[in-house]
């Protein structure tokens, strides 16, 4: 079964600093990876996804992620964060070929401080 590990449960940073949120997945022949964001008291919103092709994926709000097959990682990065980026971030892998369900990591709470 697929699994996802988000190595940091909480990441505090100052405004305008760079940030990296780490995600590792269990190896599989076909991998489809996603990052979702959940703002306080809201539902989940897709930030970006990797299905195939270029290993550097750009998403909304200035976020990007790099798929690294050898390290089974899909880390999320942003060069300069804003207060409004404070939210919980979830990495997920699709169990496609099975039921298409998403298997989520435990989440990383990003807090951007002034």
């Amino acid at each position, binding site marked *: 079964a697929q699994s996802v590990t988000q190595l940091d449960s909480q990441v505090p940073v100052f405004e305008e600093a760079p940030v990296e949120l780490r995600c590792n997945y269990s190896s599989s022949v076909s991998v489809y990876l996603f990052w979702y964001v959940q703002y306080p008291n809201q*539902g989940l919103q*897709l930030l970006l*996804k990797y299905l195939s092709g270029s290993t550097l994926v750009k998403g909304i709000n200035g976020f990007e992620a790099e798929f690294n097959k050898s390290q089974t990682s899909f880390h999320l990065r942003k060069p300069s964060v804003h207060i409004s980026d404070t939210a919980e971030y979830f990495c997920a892998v*699709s169990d496609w070929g*099975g*039921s*298409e369900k998403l298997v*989520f*990591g435990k*989440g990383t709470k990003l807090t951007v401080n002034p």
Partner: protein
Amino acid sequence: GAGVSQSPSNKVTEKGKDVELRCDPISGHTALYWYRQSLGQGLEFLIYFQGNSAPDKSGLPSDRFSAERTGGSVSTLTIQRTQQEDSAVYLCASSVGGGPYEQYFGPGTRLTVT
């Protein structure tokens, strides 16, 4: 266009009562998913529908949980004889189906069992 909607947004029920949670997916989306989000367990998959059939029910935690989908559209998740450990946010998502495509999430139903 309209996104995924869920009702009610909040539900407080007494232990032992039955509850029904409703999900209205995006029009035309053939795939529908139910997930549960709780503090201790993170985001857990419950059940996946393709059309009206449920090829993957592996995430339903007990036989007190059931779900159906009618007309390839609206889905209802039913929890019988609720227990305190059922308290969580129940999220519904839909996608175009047939592959590892983006899942669009509803705002969730917060269930509290007293």
